[in-house]
Protein backbone atom coordinates (compact mmCIF):
# COMPACT_ATOMS: atom_id res chain seq x y z
CA UNK A 1 0.00 0.00 0.00
CA UNK A 2 1.02 3.60 -0.62
CA UNK A 3 1.05 6.51 1.70
CA UNK A 4 -1.53 7.76 4.15
CA UNK A 5 -4.82 8.64 2.49
CA UNK A 6 -4.35 12.37 2.71
CA UNK A 7 -1.37 12.57 0.35
CA UNK A 8 -2.55 14.83 -2.44
CA UNK A 9 0.32 15.09 -4.88
CA UNK A 10 3.42 12.96 -5.10
CA UNK A 11 6.47 12.16 -7.17
CA UNK A 12 8.01 8.70 -6.70
CA UNK A 13 11.56 7.91 -7.75
CA UNK A 14 11.53 10.41 -10.60
CA UNK A 15 14.55 10.74 -12.83
CA UNK A 16 14.81 13.39 -15.51
CA UNK A 17 17.83 13.90 -17.74
CA UNK A 18 18.65 16.71 -20.12
CA UNK A 19 21.21 15.12 -22.37
CA UNK A 20 24.01 14.07 -20.04
CA UNK A 21 22.78 16.23 -17.18
CA UNK A 22 20.73 14.53 -14.47
CA UNK A 23 18.26 17.20 -13.35
CA UNK A 24 16.18 14.88 -11.15
CA UNK A 25 17.88 11.87 -9.65
CA UNK A 26 15.32 9.48 -8.20
CA UNK A 27 13.36 12.29 -6.57
CA UNK A 28 10.54 11.35 -4.18
CA UNK A 29 8.49 14.15 -2.70
CA UNK A 30 4.88 14.56 -1.63
CA UNK A 31 2.50 17.13 -0.25
CA UNK A 32 -0.51 16.35 1.93
CA UNK A 33 -3.95 17.83 1.56
CA UNK A 34 -4.07 21.24 3.20
CA UNK A 35 -0.33 21.32 3.71
CA UNK A 36 2.00 24.13 2.66
CA UNK A 37 5.33 22.63 1.72
CA UNK A 38 8.49 24.65 1.18
CA UNK A 39 10.80 23.32 -1.52
CA UNK A 40 14.28 24.76 -1.25
CA UNK A 41 17.75 24.07 -2.51
CA UNK A 42 20.57 25.77 -4.36
CA UNK A 43 20.26 26.96 -7.95
CA UNK A 44 20.08 24.10 -10.39
CA UNK A 45 18.93 21.63 -7.74
CA UNK A 46 15.95 20.66 -9.90
CA UNK A 47 13.06 22.45 -8.18
CA UNK A 48 11.62 23.96 -11.35
CA UNK A 49 12.08 20.69 -13.19
CA UNK A 50 10.17 18.91 -10.41
CA UNK A 51 7.28 21.33 -10.99
CA UNK A 52 7.45 20.60 -14.70
CA UNK A 53 7.12 16.89 -14.04
CA UNK A 54 4.25 17.46 -11.61
CA UNK A 55 2.30 19.43 -14.25
CA UNK A 56 3.24 17.19 -17.15
CA UNK A 57 5.18 19.88 -18.97
CA UNK A 58 8.29 17.72 -18.55
CA UNK A 59 8.18 14.01 -19.17
CA UNK A 60 10.26 12.01 -16.67
CA UNK A 61 12.67 9.35 -17.90
CA UNK A 62 11.55 7.10 -15.10
CA UNK A 63 9.45 7.25 -11.96
CA UNK A 64 5.82 8.16 -11.51
CA UNK A 65 3.54 10.97 -10.45
CA UNK A 66 0.37 10.60 -8.38
CA UNK A 67 -2.52 12.94 -7.72
CA UNK A 68 -5.22 11.81 -5.28
CA UNK A 69 -3.52 8.42 -5.48
CA UNK A 70 -4.11 8.15 -9.24
CA UNK A 71 -1.16 7.65 -11.53
CA UNK A 72 -0.97 10.81 -13.63
CA UNK A 73 2.50 10.22 -15.11
CA UNK A 74 1.22 10.25 -18.66
CA UNK A 75 -1.66 12.68 -18.24
CA UNK A 76 -1.31 15.78 -20.45
CA UNK A 77 -0.86 19.15 -18.74
CA UNK A 78 -4.25 20.65 -19.54
CA UNK A 79 -6.04 17.70 -17.97
CA UNK A 80 -3.94 17.87 -14.82
CA UNK A 81 -4.76 21.57 -14.56
CA UNK A 82 -8.43 20.80 -15.04
CA UNK A 83 -8.18 18.28 -12.22
CA UNK A 84 -6.67 20.84 -9.89
CA UNK A 85 -2.89 21.18 -10.29
CA UNK A 86 -1.84 24.74 -11.08
CA UNK A 87 1.52 26.40 -11.23
CA UNK A 88 3.20 29.76 -11.54
CA UNK A 89 6.43 30.32 -13.42
CA UNK A 90 9.72 31.49 -12.01
CA UNK A 91 9.83 33.93 -14.92
CA UNK A 92 6.18 35.07 -15.24
CA UNK A 93 4.53 34.08 -18.50
CA UNK A 94 1.56 36.37 -19.04
CA UNK A 95 -0.10 36.66 -22.45
CA UNK A 96 1.77 39.77 -23.50
CA UNK A 97 -0.74 41.33 -25.90
CA UNK A 98 -3.68 40.97 -23.51
CA UNK A 99 -4.76 43.10 -20.60
CA UNK A 100 -4.49 41.80 -17.07
CA UNK A 101 -8.24 41.15 -17.09
CA UNK A 102 -8.10 39.17 -20.33
CA UNK A 103 -5.17 37.16 -18.97
CA UNK A 104 -7.29 36.00 -16.06
CA UNK A 105 -10.21 35.33 -18.40
CA UNK A 106 -8.13 32.89 -20.44
CA UNK A 107 -7.27 31.00 -17.27
CA UNK A 108 -11.00 30.81 -16.44
CA UNK A 109 -11.96 29.32 -19.81
CA UNK A 110 -13.62 25.91 -19.96
CA UNK A 111 -11.74 23.30 -21.97
CA UNK A 112 -14.43 22.92 -24.62
CA UNK A 113 -14.56 24.62 -28.00
CA UNK A 114 -18.34 24.38 -28.03
CA UNK A 115 -18.69 26.05 -24.65
CA UNK A 116 -16.15 28.74 -25.53
CA UNK A 117 -18.29 29.68 -28.51
CA UNK A 118 -21.79 29.16 -27.15
CA UNK A 119 -21.57 30.21 -23.51
CA UNK A 120 -21.22 33.72 -22.20
CA UNK A 121 -18.34 34.15 -19.79
CA UNK A 122 -19.39 34.21 -16.13
CA UNK A 123 -19.81 37.79 -15.06
CA UNK A 124 -17.95 39.38 -12.20
CA UNK A 125 -15.81 36.37 -11.31
CA UNK A 126 -12.88 37.75 -13.30
CA UNK A 127 -12.81 41.06 -11.46
CA UNK A 128 -13.39 39.33 -8.16
CA UNK A 129 -10.29 37.21 -8.77
CA UNK A 130 -8.29 40.31 -9.59
CA UNK A 131 -9.55 42.01 -6.44
CA UNK A 132 -8.53 38.97 -4.41
CA UNK A 133 -4.91 39.60 -5.36
CA UNK A 134 -5.27 43.34 -4.86
CA UNK A 135 -5.91 44.53 -8.43
CA UNK A 136 -8.45 47.25 -9.14
CA UNK A 137 -9.94 48.57 -12.38
CA UNK A 138 -6.76 50.44 -13.20
CA UNK A 139 -4.58 47.34 -13.12
CA UNK A 140 -7.24 45.26 -14.89
CA UNK A 141 -6.85 47.42 -17.98
CA UNK A 142 -3.05 47.38 -17.97
CA UNK A 143 -0.81 45.28 -20.16
CA UNK A 144 1.82 42.96 -18.67
CA UNK A 145 4.73 45.12 -19.80
CA UNK A 146 3.38 47.93 -17.62
CA UNK A 147 3.48 45.81 -14.47
CA UNK A 148 6.17 45.59 -11.81
CA UNK A 149 7.62 42.20 -10.91
CA UNK A 150 5.41 42.13 -7.83
CA UNK A 151 2.32 42.78 -9.92
CA UNK A 152 3.38 40.15 -12.45
CA UNK A 153 3.67 37.59 -9.65
CA UNK A 154 0.23 38.57 -8.39
CA UNK A 155 -1.15 38.17 -11.89
CA UNK A 156 0.42 34.68 -12.05
CA UNK A 157 -1.27 33.85 -8.77
CA UNK A 158 -4.61 35.19 -9.99
CA UNK A 159 -4.32 33.06 -13.12
CA UNK A 160 -3.59 29.90 -11.17
CA UNK A 161 -6.49 30.62 -8.82
CA UNK A 162 -8.73 31.12 -11.86
CA UNK A 163 -8.27 27.46 -12.76
CA UNK A 164 -9.87 26.55 -9.40
CA UNK A 165 -6.91 24.50 -8.21
CA UNK A 166 -6.57 22.06 -5.35
CA UNK A 167 -2.85 22.48 -5.19
CA UNK A 168 -0.69 25.48 -6.06
CA UNK A 169 2.86 25.08 -7.27
CA UNK A 170 4.54 28.45 -6.77
CA UNK A 171 7.97 28.90 -8.31
CA UNK A 172 10.21 31.57 -6.74
CA UNK A 173 7.22 33.58 -5.59
CA UNK A 174 9.27 36.23 -3.85
CA UNK A 175 12.04 36.73 -6.40
CA UNK A 176 12.43 40.31 -7.56
CA UNK A 177 9.89 41.72 -5.11
CA UNK A 178 10.19 44.65 -2.73
CA UNK A 179 9.70 44.14 1.01
CA UNK A 180 6.20 45.59 0.73
CA UNK A 181 5.28 43.31 -2.16
CA UNK A 182 6.57 40.28 -0.25
CA UNK A 183 4.37 41.22 2.70
CA UNK A 184 1.34 41.59 0.40
CA UNK A 185 1.89 38.30 -1.33
CA UNK A 186 2.56 36.52 1.96
CA UNK A 187 -0.75 37.80 3.28
CA UNK A 188 -2.50 36.40 0.21
CA UNK A 189 -0.84 33.04 0.71
CA UNK A 190 -1.72 32.96 4.38
CA UNK A 191 -5.35 33.56 3.41
CA UNK A 192 -5.19 30.70 0.89
CA UNK A 193 -3.68 28.45 3.51
CA UNK A 194 -6.45 29.25 5.97
CA UNK A 195 -9.07 28.42 3.37
CA UNK A 196 -7.66 24.91 3.07
CA UNK A 197 -5.52 25.23 -0.04
CA UNK A 198 -2.53 22.96 -0.61
CA UNK A 199 0.72 24.37 -1.95
CA UNK A 200 4.35 23.70 -2.74
CA UNK A 201 6.35 26.90 -2.58
CA UNK A 202 9.82 27.29 -4.03
CA UNK A 203 11.78 30.23 -2.69
CA UNK A 204 15.31 31.37 -2.07
CA UNK A 205 14.05 33.87 0.46
CA UNK A 206 14.01 31.52 3.44
CA UNK A 207 13.03 34.21 5.92
CA UNK A 208 9.87 35.02 3.98
CA UNK A 209 9.14 31.37 3.36
CA UNK A 210 9.52 30.13 6.95
CA UNK A 211 6.28 31.51 8.40
CA UNK A 212 4.22 30.20 5.47
CA UNK A 213 5.06 26.52 5.41
CA UNK A 214 4.35 23.48 7.56
CA UNK A 215 7.38 21.56 6.39
CA UNK A 216 10.39 21.97 4.11
CA UNK A 217 12.10 19.65 1.68
CA UNK A 218 15.66 20.45 0.68
CA UNK A 219 16.87 19.38 -2.74
CA UNK A 220 20.38 19.18 -4.10
CA UNK A 221 21.48 17.70 -7.41
CA UNK A 222 18.02 16.39 -8.17
CA UNK A 223 17.43 14.52 -4.93
CA UNK A 224 16.14 15.20 -1.43
CA UNK A 225 18.92 15.76 1.09
CA UNK A 226 16.82 16.74 4.08
CA UNK A 227 13.26 17.34 5.15
CA UNK A 228 11.31 18.34 8.23
CA UNK A 229 10.52 21.46 10.23
CA UNK A 230 12.29 24.63 9.14
CA UNK A 231 14.75 25.17 12.00
CA UNK A 232 15.81 21.58 12.29
CA UNK A 233 16.43 21.32 8.54
CA UNK A 234 18.53 24.47 8.46
CA UNK A 235 20.72 23.03 11.22
CA UNK A 236 21.40 19.95 9.13
CA UNK A 237 25.08 19.90 8.12
CA UNK A 238 24.25 18.49 4.66
CA UNK A 239 22.00 21.46 4.00
CA UNK A 240 24.60 23.95 5.18
CA UNK A 241 27.12 22.33 2.91
CA UNK A 242 24.80 22.38 -0.11
CA UNK A 243 24.04 26.07 0.38
CA UNK A 244 27.64 27.02 1.10
CA UNK A 245 28.76 24.96 -1.86
CA UNK A 246 26.93 27.19 -4.30
CA UNK A 247 28.08 30.48 -2.78
Amino acid at each position, binding site marked *: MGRAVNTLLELREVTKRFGGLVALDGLSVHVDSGEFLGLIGPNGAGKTTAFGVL*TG*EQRPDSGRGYFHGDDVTRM*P*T*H*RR*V*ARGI*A*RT*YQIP*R*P*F*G*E*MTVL*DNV*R*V*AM*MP*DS*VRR*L*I*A*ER*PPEGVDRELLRSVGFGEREAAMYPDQLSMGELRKLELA*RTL*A*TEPEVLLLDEVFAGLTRGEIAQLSALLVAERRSGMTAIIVSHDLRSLAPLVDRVVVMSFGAVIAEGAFEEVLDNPLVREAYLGQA
Partner: protein
Amino acid sequence: MPLARPLLGWLAFAVVMCLVPVFVSTGTVRILVFANFLAIFAMSWDVISGRTGYISFGHPFLIGIAGYTTAMLTYHLDTPLWLSIPAGVFATLVGGTLFLLPALRIRGTYFALVTLAFMELMYQLTQVIAPKVTGGTRGLSGIPTIVSGAIPNYYLTFGLVFAIGLGLWFVLRTRIGAALAALRMDEGAVAASGLSTIRLKLFAFMTSAAVAGIGGAFYVHYLGSIAPRGLFDINFLFTILVAALLGGSSTVAGPILGAYFLTFLLEYLRPYLPGPERYVIYGMIALVVYVLEPRGLHAILRTGARRLAPLLARRRIAP
Protein backbone atom coordinates in the same frame (compact mmCIF):
# COMPACT_ATOMS: atom_id res chain seq x y z
CA MET B 1 -18.63 44.39 -26.72
CA PRO B 2 -21.76 46.10 -28.06
CA LEU B 3 -23.12 44.39 -31.12
CA ALA B 4 -24.99 47.18 -32.86
CA ARG B 5 -22.09 49.15 -34.31
CA PRO B 6 -20.12 46.36 -35.95
CA LEU B 7 -23.35 44.85 -37.28
CA LEU B 8 -24.17 48.20 -38.81
CA GLY B 9 -20.75 48.13 -40.40
CA TRP B 10 -21.44 44.72 -41.94
CA LEU B 11 -24.78 45.94 -43.19
CA ALA B 12 -23.24 49.04 -44.77
CA PHE B 13 -20.59 46.85 -46.38
CA ALA B 14 -23.28 44.61 -47.89
CA VAL B 15 -25.32 47.54 -49.19
CA VAL B 16 -22.32 49.22 -50.80
CA MET B 17 -21.07 46.00 -52.36
CA CYS B 18 -24.52 45.17 -53.73
CA LEU B 19 -24.74 48.57 -55.38
CA VAL B 20 -21.25 48.44 -56.90
CA PRO B 21 -22.23 46.63 -60.14
CA VAL B 22 -24.68 49.42 -60.92
CA PHE B 23 -21.90 51.96 -61.09
CA VAL B 24 -18.91 50.18 -62.54
CA SER B 25 -18.05 48.51 -65.84
CA THR B 26 -18.44 44.79 -66.48
CA GLY B 27 -14.67 44.54 -66.62
CA THR B 28 -14.39 45.90 -63.11
CA VAL B 29 -17.11 43.54 -61.89
CA ARG B 30 -15.08 40.66 -63.27
CA ILE B 31 -12.04 41.85 -61.35
CA LEU B 32 -14.20 42.06 -58.25
CA VAL B 33 -15.16 38.42 -58.63
CA PHE B 34 -11.48 37.54 -58.29
CA ALA B 35 -11.20 39.91 -55.35
CA ASN B 36 -14.06 38.05 -53.68
CA PHE B 37 -12.28 34.74 -54.08
CA LEU B 38 -9.06 36.24 -52.78
CA ALA B 39 -10.99 37.61 -49.80
CA ILE B 40 -12.27 34.12 -48.99
CA PHE B 41 -8.80 32.61 -49.24
CA ALA B 42 -7.26 35.41 -47.17
CA MET B 43 -9.92 35.00 -44.45
CA SER B 44 -9.19 31.30 -44.41
CA TRP B 45 -5.46 31.89 -44.14
CA ASP B 46 -5.95 34.34 -41.33
CA VAL B 47 -7.94 31.91 -39.18
CA ILE B 48 -5.01 29.56 -38.97
CA SER B 49 -2.05 31.90 -39.36
CA GLY B 50 -3.23 35.30 -38.15
CA ARG B 51 -5.01 33.95 -35.10
CA THR B 52 -2.91 31.05 -33.90
CA GLY B 53 0.44 32.11 -35.36
CA TYR B 54 0.89 28.87 -37.30
CA ILE B 55 2.02 30.35 -40.59
CA SER B 56 0.59 28.29 -43.44
CA PHE B 57 2.51 28.20 -46.71
CA GLY B 58 0.26 25.40 -47.86
CA HIS B 59 -3.05 27.12 -48.50
CA PRO B 60 -3.08 26.28 -52.21
CA PHE B 61 -2.90 22.66 -51.04
CA LEU B 62 -6.18 23.05 -49.13
CA ILE B 63 -7.80 25.02 -51.93
CA GLY B 64 -6.58 22.45 -54.45
CA ILE B 65 -8.05 19.50 -52.59
CA ALA B 66 -11.56 20.95 -52.78
CA GLY B 67 -11.01 22.16 -56.33
CA TYR B 68 -9.76 18.85 -57.63
CA THR B 69 -12.33 16.81 -55.74
CA THR B 70 -15.31 18.67 -57.13
CA ALA B 71 -13.70 19.02 -60.58
CA MET B 72 -13.04 15.30 -60.91
CA LEU B 73 -16.44 14.32 -59.53
CA THR B 74 -18.31 16.54 -61.96
CA TYR B 75 -16.02 15.92 -64.92
CA HIS B 76 -15.84 12.14 -64.76
CA LEU B 77 -18.98 11.14 -62.89
CA ASP B 78 -21.36 13.97 -63.68
CA THR B 79 -21.92 14.35 -59.96
CA PRO B 80 -24.38 17.20 -59.31
CA LEU B 81 -22.81 20.33 -57.82
CA TRP B 82 -24.87 20.21 -54.64
CA LEU B 83 -23.08 16.95 -53.89
CA SER B 84 -19.64 17.55 -55.39
CA ILE B 85 -19.03 20.89 -53.68
CA PRO B 86 -19.73 19.57 -50.15
CA ALA B 87 -17.62 16.54 -51.02
CA GLY B 88 -14.78 18.88 -51.96
CA VAL B 89 -15.12 20.80 -48.71
CA PHE B 90 -15.17 17.56 -46.75
CA ALA B 91 -12.01 16.37 -48.49
CA THR B 92 -10.35 19.67 -47.55
CA LEU B 93 -11.30 19.12 -43.91
CA VAL B 94 -9.50 15.80 -44.04
CA GLY B 95 -6.52 17.54 -45.67
CA GLY B 96 -6.63 20.19 -42.92
CA THR B 97 -6.08 17.53 -40.27
CA LEU B 98 -2.79 16.75 -42.04
CA PHE B 99 -1.64 20.23 -41.02
CA LEU B 100 -2.14 19.18 -37.42
CA LEU B 101 0.55 16.52 -37.64
CA PRO B 102 3.50 18.91 -37.99
CA ALA B 103 1.75 21.38 -35.66
CA LEU B 104 1.92 18.89 -32.81
CA ARG B 105 5.67 19.27 -32.68
CA ILE B 106 6.80 22.36 -34.55
CA ARG B 107 5.77 25.92 -35.19
CA GLY B 108 7.15 29.01 -36.87
CA THR B 109 9.33 28.63 -39.92
CA TYR B 110 9.42 24.85 -39.77
CA PHE B 111 5.65 24.59 -39.81
CA ALA B 112 5.53 26.96 -42.78
CA LEU B 113 8.05 24.83 -44.66
CA VAL B 114 6.24 21.57 -43.99
CA THR B 115 2.96 23.04 -45.26
CA LEU B 116 4.82 24.35 -48.30
CA ALA B 117 5.98 20.79 -48.88
CA PHE B 118 2.32 19.69 -48.81
CA MET B 119 1.60 22.10 -51.64
CA GLU B 120 4.61 20.95 -53.65
CA LEU B 121 3.73 17.31 -53.08
CA MET B 122 0.18 17.90 -54.27
CA TYR B 123 1.54 19.67 -57.35
CA GLN B 124 3.64 16.65 -58.23
CA LEU B 125 0.93 14.15 -57.39
CA THR B 126 -1.69 15.73 -59.64
CA GLN B 127 0.70 15.33 -62.54
CA VAL B 128 2.23 11.97 -61.82
CA ILE B 129 -0.49 9.85 -60.28
CA ALA B 130 -3.36 8.97 -62.57
CA PRO B 131 -3.03 11.90 -65.00
CA LYS B 132 -6.10 10.52 -66.78
CA VAL B 133 -8.16 11.30 -63.70
CA THR B 134 -6.60 14.62 -62.71
CA GLY B 135 -5.93 15.82 -66.23
CA GLY B 136 -2.18 15.81 -65.56
CA THR B 137 -0.20 18.93 -66.37
CA ARG B 138 -2.99 20.46 -68.42
CA GLY B 139 -5.65 19.89 -65.82
CA LEU B 140 -9.36 19.61 -66.53
CA SER B 141 -11.57 22.01 -68.44
CA GLY B 142 -15.22 22.03 -69.39
CA ILE B 143 -16.22 21.81 -65.76
CA PRO B 144 -19.79 23.01 -65.19
CA THR B 145 -20.26 26.55 -63.92
CA ILE B 146 -22.93 27.57 -61.44
CA VAL B 147 -24.09 30.81 -62.99
CA SER B 148 -22.81 32.65 -66.02
CA GLY B 149 -22.05 36.28 -66.64
CA ALA B 150 -20.02 38.71 -64.58
CA ILE B 151 -22.83 40.16 -62.50
CA PRO B 152 -24.48 36.91 -61.33
CA ASN B 153 -21.03 35.57 -60.46
CA TYR B 154 -20.29 38.75 -58.60
CA TYR B 155 -23.39 38.42 -56.45
CA LEU B 156 -22.76 34.74 -55.86
CA THR B 157 -19.16 35.28 -54.74
CA PHE B 158 -19.95 38.37 -52.72
CA GLY B 159 -22.70 36.36 -51.00
CA LEU B 160 -20.03 33.83 -50.04
CA VAL B 161 -17.66 36.53 -48.78
CA PHE B 162 -20.41 38.08 -46.73
CA ALA B 163 -21.73 34.84 -45.25
CA ILE B 164 -18.26 33.52 -44.41
CA GLY B 165 -17.07 36.87 -43.09
CA LEU B 166 -20.07 37.39 -40.85
CA GLY B 167 -19.97 33.78 -39.68
CA LEU B 168 -16.28 34.00 -38.77
CA TRP B 169 -16.82 37.34 -37.11
CA PHE B 170 -19.60 35.96 -34.93
CA VAL B 171 -17.58 32.93 -33.89
CA LEU B 172 -14.22 34.60 -33.38
CA ARG B 173 -15.57 37.43 -31.26
CA THR B 174 -16.48 34.87 -28.60
CA ARG B 175 -13.99 33.48 -26.12
CA ILE B 176 -12.66 31.06 -28.73
CA GLY B 177 -11.07 34.05 -30.47
CA ALA B 178 -9.25 35.02 -27.28
CA ALA B 179 -8.18 31.42 -26.73
CA LEU B 180 -6.64 31.26 -30.22
CA ALA B 181 -4.88 34.58 -29.63
CA ALA B 182 -3.48 33.20 -26.38
CA LEU B 183 -2.26 30.18 -28.32
CA ARG B 184 -0.34 32.50 -30.61
CA MET B 185 1.29 34.26 -27.66
CA ASP B 186 2.31 31.32 -25.45
CA GLU B 187 1.18 27.79 -26.13
CA GLY B 188 2.66 26.40 -22.92
CA ALA B 189 0.82 28.96 -20.84
CA VAL B 190 -2.43 28.01 -22.59
CA ALA B 191 -1.95 24.38 -21.58
CA ALA B 192 -1.11 25.56 -18.05
CA SER B 193 -4.47 27.37 -18.08
CA GLY B 194 -6.16 24.00 -18.48
CA LEU B 195 -6.94 24.22 -22.20
CA SER B 196 -6.14 21.52 -24.73
CA THR B 197 -3.90 23.21 -27.26
CA ILE B 198 -4.41 20.35 -29.70
CA ARG B 199 -8.16 20.83 -29.67
CA LEU B 200 -7.82 24.59 -30.17
CA LYS B 201 -5.45 24.09 -33.09
CA LEU B 202 -7.72 21.47 -34.58
CA PHE B 203 -10.62 23.90 -34.40
CA ALA B 204 -8.62 26.67 -36.10
CA PHE B 205 -7.29 24.34 -38.78
CA MET B 206 -10.70 22.83 -39.51
CA THR B 207 -12.36 26.23 -39.71
CA SER B 208 -9.63 27.49 -41.99
CA ALA B 209 -9.85 24.36 -44.14
CA ALA B 210 -13.63 24.60 -44.43
CA VAL B 211 -13.39 28.17 -45.69
CA ALA B 212 -10.53 27.33 -48.06
CA GLY B 213 -12.55 24.35 -49.31
CA ILE B 214 -15.67 26.42 -49.99
CA GLY B 215 -13.57 29.01 -51.81
CA GLY B 216 -11.66 26.40 -53.79
CA ALA B 217 -14.73 24.48 -54.91
CA PHE B 218 -16.62 27.57 -56.03
CA TYR B 219 -13.49 28.94 -57.69
CA VAL B 220 -13.21 25.88 -59.92
CA HIS B 221 -16.88 26.11 -60.86
CA TYR B 222 -16.42 29.77 -61.67
CA LEU B 223 -13.39 29.23 -63.88
CA GLY B 224 -14.83 26.06 -65.42
CA SER B 225 -11.37 24.57 -65.31
CA ILE B 226 -8.55 23.59 -63.03
CA ALA B 227 -4.83 23.29 -63.71
CA PRO B 228 -1.96 22.57 -61.33
CA ARG B 229 0.41 25.30 -62.59
CA GLY B 230 -1.63 28.31 -61.58
CA LEU B 231 -2.99 26.76 -58.42
CA PHE B 232 0.02 25.30 -56.66
CA ASP B 233 1.96 28.42 -57.27
CA ILE B 234 4.14 30.53 -54.99
CA ASN B 235 2.70 33.76 -56.42
CA PHE B 236 -0.82 32.60 -55.64
CA LEU B 237 0.24 31.67 -52.12
CA PHE B 238 1.91 35.03 -51.52
CA THR B 239 -1.04 36.95 -52.89
CA ILE B 240 -3.22 35.30 -50.24
CA LEU B 241 -0.67 35.94 -47.54
CA VAL B 242 -0.06 39.57 -48.47
CA ALA B 243 -3.79 40.24 -48.75
CA ALA B 244 -4.30 39.07 -45.16
CA LEU B 245 -1.24 40.82 -43.74
CA LEU B 246 -1.78 44.02 -45.69
CA GLY B 247 -5.41 44.25 -44.68
CA GLY B 248 -4.70 43.38 -41.07
CA SER B 249 -4.32 39.91 -39.68
CA SER B 250 -6.26 38.60 -36.69
CA THR B 251 -9.34 40.47 -37.88
CA VAL B 252 -12.09 39.44 -40.28
CA ALA B 253 -12.49 42.77 -42.07
CA GLY B 254 -8.73 43.07 -42.65
CA PRO B 255 -8.23 40.16 -45.06
CA ILE B 256 -11.33 41.21 -47.04
CA LEU B 257 -10.07 44.76 -47.28
CA GLY B 258 -6.59 43.57 -48.19
CA ALA B 259 -7.97 41.31 -50.91
CA TYR B 260 -9.87 44.13 -52.63
CA PHE B 261 -6.97 46.53 -52.30
CA LEU B 262 -4.44 44.05 -53.62
CA THR B 263 -6.57 42.84 -56.53
CA PHE B 264 -7.04 46.37 -57.78
CA LEU B 265 -3.43 47.23 -57.20
CA LEU B 266 -2.34 44.26 -59.33
CA GLU B 267 -4.91 45.11 -61.94
CA TYR B 268 -3.88 48.75 -62.27
CA LEU B 269 -0.24 47.80 -62.43
CA ARG B 270 -0.91 45.33 -65.22
CA PRO B 271 -0.71 47.79 -68.18
CA TYR B 272 2.62 49.15 -66.96
CA LEU B 273 4.10 45.92 -65.71
CA PRO B 274 2.66 42.96 -67.59
CA GLY B 275 5.15 40.43 -66.22
CA PRO B 276 5.83 39.06 -62.78
CA GLU B 277 7.65 42.32 -61.83
CA ARG B 278 4.26 43.41 -60.61
CA TYR B 279 4.67 41.13 -57.66
CA VAL B 280 7.84 42.93 -56.66
CA ILE B 281 5.97 46.23 -56.65
CA TYR B 282 3.14 44.91 -54.55
CA GLY B 283 5.63 43.35 -52.22
CA MET B 284 7.14 46.78 -51.74
CA ILE B 285 3.80 48.45 -51.22
CA ALA B 286 2.87 45.81 -48.69
CA LEU B 287 6.15 46.47 -46.93
CA VAL B 288 5.51 50.23 -46.80
CA VAL B 289 2.06 49.70 -45.33
CA TYR B 290 3.51 47.24 -42.87
CA VAL B 291 6.16 49.71 -41.74
CA LEU B 292 3.54 52.45 -41.36
CA GLU B 293 1.14 50.24 -39.43
CA PRO B 294 1.95 46.59 -38.71
CA ARG B 295 -1.71 45.90 -38.05
CA GLY B 296 -2.50 46.74 -41.65
CA LEU B 297 -4.98 48.82 -43.65
CA HIS B 298 -7.76 47.83 -41.31
CA ALA B 299 -6.05 49.61 -38.42
CA ILE B 300 -5.13 52.60 -40.58
CA LEU B 301 -8.75 53.11 -41.60
CA ARG B 302 -9.92 52.60 -38.03
CA THR B 303 -7.58 55.23 -36.64
CA GLY B 304 -8.54 57.52 -39.50
CA ALA B 305 -12.24 57.08 -38.75
CA ARG B 306 -11.67 57.69 -35.06
CA ARG B 307 -9.87 60.94 -35.84
CA LEU B 308 -12.45 62.01 -38.38
CA ALA B 309 -15.53 61.25 -36.31
CA PRO B 310 -15.20 64.21 -33.90
CA LEU B 311 -14.50 66.57 -36.81
CA LEU B 312 -17.64 65.47 -38.62
CA ALA B 313 -19.68 65.64 -35.44
CA ARG B 314 -18.49 69.19 -34.80
CA ARG B 315 -19.44 70.24 -38.31
CA ARG B 316 -22.91 68.83 -37.87
CA ILE B 317 -23.45 70.78 -34.67
CA ALA B 318 -22.10 74.02 -36.11
CA PRO B 319 -24.76 76.16 -37.75
